[in-house]
Each structure stands twice: as structure tokens, then as C-alpha cells.
């Protein structure tokens, strides 16, 4: 069975500081990994994904994430946070070898960037 954990319900960071939102996963095979962001009163927007290749993935709005197979992690990072990054962030996984299986989303982490 697939599962995703986001160990922090809330992350607070000062504007201009680096930010990290953590995600760990469990799949029986190799994963497809995703990050989505949900701004207040808006739908989910795709940020970035890891399918294969380079473990460091760059996405929208200056975000990046690193796939670490040994630690089964896919932490989201940004070198310098903006107040406008404040939102709810979801990590998601799908088992690459099990086509037809749905995505599993983590519980979400609320990021607050303080001015």
C-alpha cells in the first residue's frame, strides 16, 4: 500500500529565509512524487514532480525538491521565502509500477511566511 507522511502540520519561516517542507513516502515499487500548493480559497496547483532522472527537481515559483531514495523522502525547498508563499502544501505519491493505481496525498503542511 502507498502512503505519504508530512510530519509537520505547520511551518513558520521569516521572509527571506530558506524554507523546507518535509515529505516521506512508502510505496512497494518506485515512486512518482508530486508537490501541490493550495492558496486560500483556491484550488490545488501543481508545483513540481519527480518522475525519473535527476534527483533534484525544480518547479514553479522558485521551489525545488530532492528525491532521496534511501531516506524515502521528497522534501520541498526554497532558498528565500516570500510572504506570498504562505499556503497549504501537499505531497503526493503514486507507485510507478502499478499503473491504474490512484494517487495518495499527504495531510498537508501549512506554511506561514512572516514579514
Amino acid at each position: 500500500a502507498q502512503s505519504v507522511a508530512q510530519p509537520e502540520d505547520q511551518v513558520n519561516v521569516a521572509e527571506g529565509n530558506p524554507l523546507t517542507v518535509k515529505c516521506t513516502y512508502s510505496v512497494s515499487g518506485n515512486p512518482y512524487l508530486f508537490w501541490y500548493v493550495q492558496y486560500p480559497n483556491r484550488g490545488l496547483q501543481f508545483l513540481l514532480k519527480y518522475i525519473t532522472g535527476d534527483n533534484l527537481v525544480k518547479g514553479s515559483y522558485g521551489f525545488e525538491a530532492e528525491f532521496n531514495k534511501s531516506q524515502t523522502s521528497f522534501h520541498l525547498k526554497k532558498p528565500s521565502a516570500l510572504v506570498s508563499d504562505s499556503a497549504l502544501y501537499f505531497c503526493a505519491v503514486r507507485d510507478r509500477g502499478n499503473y491504474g493505481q490512484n494517487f495518495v496525498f499527504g495531510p498537508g503542511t501549512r506554511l506561514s511566511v512572516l514579514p
Partner: protein
Amino acid sequence: GAGVSQSPSNKVTEKGKDVELRCDPISGHTALYWYRQSLGQGLEFLIYFQGNSAPDKSGLPSDRFSAERTGGSVSTLTIQRTQQEDSAVYLCASSPGTSGSSQETQYFGPGTRLLVL
């Protein structure tokens, strides 16, 4: 091109009534997903359609919930005899659904906010 659309955007109903929520996926997307998001909570998977295959209904919380997808395009999620705990935002997403490709990204609609009084 148009993204995923959902209607209605808001629905207020009385306990015990039936409701239908509609999702129009992106044209050509073969995969369609329904999720439920309660206030401030994560996404709860409900049901997944992939092409002509039998849908994955493993996330439906009770037999009051059902969904269909006509002609491989528009989907309707039906909740019968609504209960107050059904109040949530119901999100629909579609994806190209091509196996083994990089086109696995889900595109989400704006959601339908359901309130059961």
C-alpha cells in the same frame, strides 16, 4: 484551453436531500479523480476513473456516494440522503493518464463547496 471545471461552485442543501456535483475534465484527459477536502484538512480520495476500465471506488465512504463518467468525459458525483458530515469541498482532477510517461500531473478544478444543513 479550458481547465477542469466544476459545478455548482457552492451548494447548500438540507439533510436527507440528494445532490449531484459535476466535473468537466480537460479535453482528452483519460483519468479523472474525485477527492473530498474537509475544512482545513487534507485530501481524501473518493473515486478514480481511467479510460474504459472499471473505476476504483475504494475511497467512497458509504453506499450513499456514487459516481459515473459518461462517454469518458463528464463525471457526476452523487450523494444520496446527505448528512451534515458530508459538508466539505469536493475536488475533481483530471490527468492525461498515459502510463509510464511524464504526463502524470493532475489538474484540479476549483471545487464544489457543499454545506448540508
